């Protein structure tokens, strides 16, 4: 066992994976932070007479040009069912000139329905309005609301004042692109994760058999290549708590150069369980190598899949075993190997 060395390294980390996680956290942080930004300036309910020329003053709005966020004016009309109201949010300067205005055709409707002897009621409304403004200079503007048109659904004009709840906050972030951006970023992160889990690198070996022993040979390795081995064990409901798969790697001459017995906690539930073993190696000399795997205990094993990727990348810090192309003394058992572990044996030297 003198020809191997195991250590933990980040040297083979794929930067794309780290950047992807960074992107996801950046997007999430931007979305969460947006909830806490914004300072309320006005919160008031005004009763507005229906008059297109009139203006119900809500309050003074202090505006400042800011790189981040805008001043958001939100309003909600309170009208009874089957009424529609067209109202306008208006910003007026100290000379009485309109600086900006926005209009909402709001309505509330309800009724009954009947179908196949069943009946019920429905009600729907769209009463909210909103306007985001960005100041280009520091100024104080009067925020007002006017009701342009107030009628019943049948078109009969109503003369009673309309209660309108108005709120205004500064430094508000536009959350819609953040929300959609978060969804798209999350989907792409998951897809990219699936791709990198499927193995970034060149698949040098792939073999799947409905048995517990799997072996295959491929050309791989080299001093700068990370070799990623993924073993998938499919097993039934009699799966033990852990598997002890044993791996042998053989060189071009058929000599064992590495052996390892893993203790692997089984995972999954029901009668279709899947347990995955990941291994990272560096086979210092490029060449033909055979991977031999035997899963024990094998009673519950339905299928074993061996995939080995050459020039792979890791998603972070991984434990890598460097293996030199040097035959190990004895392949029959680890006890013999340990007895032979002094590098005095002539067979251990290439």
């Amino acid at each position, binding site marked *: 066992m003198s020809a191997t060395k195991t250590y933990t390294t980040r040297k083979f980390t794929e930067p794309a994976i780290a950047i992807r996680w960074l992107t996801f956290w950046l*997007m999430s942080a931007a979305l969460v932070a947006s909830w806490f930004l914004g300072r309320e300036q006005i919160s008031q309910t005004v009763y507005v007479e229906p008059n297109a020329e009139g203006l119900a003053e809500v309050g003074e709005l202090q505006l400042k040009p800011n790189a981040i966020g805008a001043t958001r004016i*939100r309003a909600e009309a309170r009208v009874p069912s089957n009424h529609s109201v067209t109202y306008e949010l208006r910003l007026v300067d100290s000379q009485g000139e309109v600086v900006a205005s*926005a209009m909402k055709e709001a309505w509330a409707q309800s009724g009954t329905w009947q179908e196949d002897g069943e009946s019920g009621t429905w009600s729907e409304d769209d009463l909210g*309005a909103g306007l*985001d403004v960005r100041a280009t200079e520091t100024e104080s503007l009067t925020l007002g609301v006017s009701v342009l048109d107030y009628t019943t659904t049948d078109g009969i004009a109503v003369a009673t004042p309309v209660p309108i709840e108005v709120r205004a906050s500064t430094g508000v972030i536009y959350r819609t692109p953040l929300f959609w951006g978060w969804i798209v970023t999350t989907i792409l992160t998951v897809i990219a994760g699936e791709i990198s889990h499927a193995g970034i690198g060149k698949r040098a070996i792939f073999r799947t058999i409905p048995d517990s022993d799997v072996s295959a040979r491929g050309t791989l390795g080299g001093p700068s290549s990370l070799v990623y081995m993924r073993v998938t064990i499919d097993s039934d409901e009699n799966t033990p708590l852990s598997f002890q798969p044993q791996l042998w790697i053989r060189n071009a001459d058929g000599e064992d150069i590495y052996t390892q017995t893993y203790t692997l906690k089984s995972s999954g539930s029901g009668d279709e369980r899947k347990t995955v073993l990941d291994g990272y190696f560096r086979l210092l000399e490029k060449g033909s190598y055979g991977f031999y795997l035997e899963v024990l205990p094998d009673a519950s094993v339905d299928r074993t899949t061996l995939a080995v990727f050459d020039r792979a990348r890791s998603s972070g810090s991984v434990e890598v075993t460097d293996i030199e192309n040097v035959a190990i003394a004895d392949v029959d058992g680890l006890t013999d190997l340990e007895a032979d572990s002094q590098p005095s044996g002539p067979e251990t030297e290439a």
Partner: protein
Amino acid sequence: MTLWFARLLTATTLGIAIWAIWLGYSQKSALSLRSTEQHYGTRYGTSTSGRYYGGVWVYSPSRAEYGTFRGGGPGAGGK
């Protein structure tokens, strides 16, 4: 091939995230006061009822209808 695709996907994801954050935080689609250059996007089904001509707010024709609808009078159609 897979690595190349994963990197492209990561770059795309980062690009979309930066773009979304910029759109949200810069509030570029808010109404820019007294500015003729606008990238306004409506919020909560609320449309602006006018636009700037040389930094002065002028009501749009659809807004002006409301004055005459109630019998008109002086000042109908906005200032």
